[in-house]
């Protein structure tokens, strides 16, 4: 299974995703410079975190105009799996591949810390191997992760089971105290209607190795591999 990792000017979690896929899971992976337009050879795409275009203007607002994004759209519409992490999620929102928008964290500050998220559904490539309701410990690192959508959209997301991750306490309870950024309904990640495009604020690639005693993030990548019937090294 060949992964493509899209690199915008200012992406900075590209190497971290590459490290997990290539060195930990032994999968072929390539960087895709944002001016490239041929994505046929890839089985899945990852839009990594970082500060594409410095987050100037608005997070993801400039990246959506990069040449590669048209092809990412085509890839997604053809059913190809796309995972957007942090800035990648923000770009997917700006590009209209996922519904809603990001606001600044309610503290108005950048927040870097571990949080707990509850996996709401196994019905995506990246959560297929995770039992719904399971609580994962994942890091967040963002200034604009306060997910917003109008009530209609939020209802739609719920009705269609499109909310994939929600911030929670370590036992899986959802409450305002555990919501790190003010996101509507404690949403930490969502997918599109056809369930192949997933955006999430937490960084699974940062806790796939157990360096700090935590490898919960590995489950997401493992899920994608299992789904396509391929085993990691």
């Amino acid at each position: 299974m060949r992964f493509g990792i899209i690199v915008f000017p200012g992406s900075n979690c590209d190497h971290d995703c590459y490290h997990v896929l290539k060195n930990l899971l032994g999968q072929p992976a390539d960087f895709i410079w944002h001016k490239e337009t041929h994505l046929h050879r890839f089985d899945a795409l990852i839009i990594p975190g970082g500060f594409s275009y410095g987050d100037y203007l608005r997070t993801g607002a400039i990246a959506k105009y990069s040449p590669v994004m048209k092809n990412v759209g085509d890839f997604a519409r053809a059913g190809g799996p796309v995972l957007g992490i942090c800035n990648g999620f923000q770009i997917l929102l700006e590009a209209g591949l996922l519904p809603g928008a990001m606001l600044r964290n309610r503290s108005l500050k950048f927040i870097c810390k571990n949080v707990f998220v509850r996996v709401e559904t196994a019905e995506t490539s990246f959560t297929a191997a995770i039992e719904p309701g399971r609580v994962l410990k994942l890091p967040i690192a963002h200034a604009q992760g306060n997910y917003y959508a109008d009530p209609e959209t939020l209802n739609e997301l719920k009705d269609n089971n499109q909310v994939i991750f929600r911030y929670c306490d370590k036992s899986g309870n959802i409450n305002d105290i555990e919501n790190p950024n003010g996101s509507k309904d404690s949403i930490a990640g969502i997918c599109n209607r056809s369930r192949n495009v997933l955006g999430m604020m937490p960084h699974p690639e940062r806790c796939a190795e157990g360096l700090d005693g935590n490898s919960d993030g590995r489950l997401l990548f493992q899920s994608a591999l299992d789904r396509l019937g391929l085993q990691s090294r």
Partner: protein
Amino acid sequence: MPMDKEIIEQHGLSEEEYQRILTLLGREPNRLELGLFSVMWSEHCSYKSSRFHLRKFPTTGERVLQGPGENAGAVDIGDGLAVVFKIESHNHPSFIEPYQGAATGVGGILRDIFTMGARPIALLNSLRFGPLESPKNRYLLEGVVAGIAGYGNCMGIPTIGGEIYFNEIYNQNPLVNVFCLGVVKKDRIFRASASGIGNTVIYLGSRTGRDGIHGATMASEGFDESIESRRPTVQVGDPFTEKLLLEACLEIMKQDLVVAIQDMGAAGLSSSSVEMAGRGGTGIEMELARVPRREEGMTPYELMLSESQERMLLVAKPGREDAILAICAKWDLDVAAIGRVTDTRRLVLKNDGRIVADLPIPALTDDAPVYERPMETPLYLDSLQGINLDTIPQPKDFGATLIAMLASPTIGSKRWVYQQYDYMVRTNTVIRPGFESGVVRIKGTRKALAISLDGNGAYGILNPYRGGVIAVCEAARNVICAGARPIGLTDCLNFGNPERPDVMWQFALSVEGIADACRELAIPVVSGNVSFYNETHGLGIYPTSIVGVVGLIEEVDRVVRPGFRDAGDRIVLLGETKDELGGSEYLRRIHTREGGYPPLLDLAVEKALHNCCLSAIEAGIIRSAHDCSEGGLAVALAEAAILSGPMSESARGASVTLQNLPIRMDAYLFGETQSRIVVTVSETRLDELEKHCAENEVPMAVIGRVEGDRLTVGIEGWGRPLIDLPVETIRTVWNRAVASYFDEREKEGR
């Protein structure tokens, strides 16, 4: 026509210095040339007051690949790799404009590292502010932290540690010192020495604007009421462009396209061109009309003195110019060939073909003045040191005193700060901020690096020599506690006005202290920075020598943390506790007194402690290690308990019974006697630890056991413990020490 006196003064040059220029040139300089002398001879660029003393540092060692004098120092870590690191101050700009001042400080130190061909993998910072009760200080802290975060996070370089002290003395002169470390293949270190007559000089990065003109000169003066008007001397950072510049430079160096490369930091295009030619023994000729610029009508003077950020100057290998241009085009960076290397040893600047400046390079570099400034023991010393401890009452409730200590922003958790830094990006962080040292692993090896910054101005003012010694020892002890062997050191020396003999005395002694400690502990000084003129309205800061020690861990799985591990583990104190209270946080916080003699430090004892602790860690018998520093033994024990519980688990308490010593109880618990480490070991391996201690002649005392969820500290034969508190209580107080000064919502870390 002779130069106007006022103009010379505006350029920060003394009358004698101007005379020296006349002698060196044999003529009057023009305005542009005067500007070049002004910045190149500024304290900031020339180290004219400090150079004489800095020679005392030991700068060589088996592993040293590059000592002071380059953009940063480099040390061999084996596996064909080297680490490149340096610390630098951005104090003055950060007081004038905290966000941009701090942000561009990070930008500058990053460029110093990647200029050497190294990819930056870790940032740390050392900050000093006045107390947080003052809104101005809260504003400064918020701005500085946001600036560091804004720049480092965007660059994708983790900020893995640091330290902050709060003290009134920094009210008008906060300190912002930033450290960066990068990794490079040891045979691929790039240097900034212009060679190859006729080679093209290329400008790369942001366009030049009118910002930061005379920043270096500003940083070489004290402050007065004109501070507001100096805001335009602070540069504005653009981390996005720096990220592109980083990637482009590393790509250019990977393809081996350049002879030399240097960032345009303080004094911008002037210092980068002059220093590169100076190191290479060559000359440089540049056509200023080709310099990319933000606005029309900029004069040669402005172009040469601007400190616009995110710019690099490089000397291309012959025939590789097009390859360089292609890489810059890929990264959408402005680039221009603006000159060439010559054999004249002169800096020749042209504007549209007309020569506007023509100066001998050595006049700007080697011939810059070096001062052996007068020194004098300060008058304040006797009264400060002569504190009578008999007048200091002992606490009635040691538990309450411990709580008050943990609530001190200097001691308590800095989570409010480091939570704003991305400390995990690049997925190398083994020990995050909030511990004694930050630890990053080196991908592709089994190795890791522990990095610690340390320095205590409160010791510095009472005894600058010992302040220097203790800074080195504490930073080294911190990396030892993580299981790392110190391999190199960088220093940032923050002082007042060097033209004052008492300040110069403080400086000279601090340098001696650092030098002696480095020599005894065999840690070479490989880079550093001096920041003078940290004074406002004539009031200078405490002598604040910050040192950064880098330690090498051969086996990343062996990393040791300060928090208690398992119930039943025995708690052992390595080292002896003395009757010392001088310069302590306890005196300051509890008794609002600053004075006395800072703790003694015997370098041979310190060295034995390091060897003992490290050998025990390498033998795998140490389960946790935490040194005793600010707040003493009681705070060290409390922190070990607080840090025992990572996010999802419960904290571990401890029952401690101390030997009965004939010393004051407050000194026992809160005094800052040096050369002590609290370690834990499993009961079964206690005898092994005893052997390590005996071999190194390090005194040890088994003082307690990890158990329960309370911290109790008592004295043998005293019955009731002096301290008996739930860990949850002390953890809450410690957690809120800084956060409680900011609004409710933030307290929850939301």
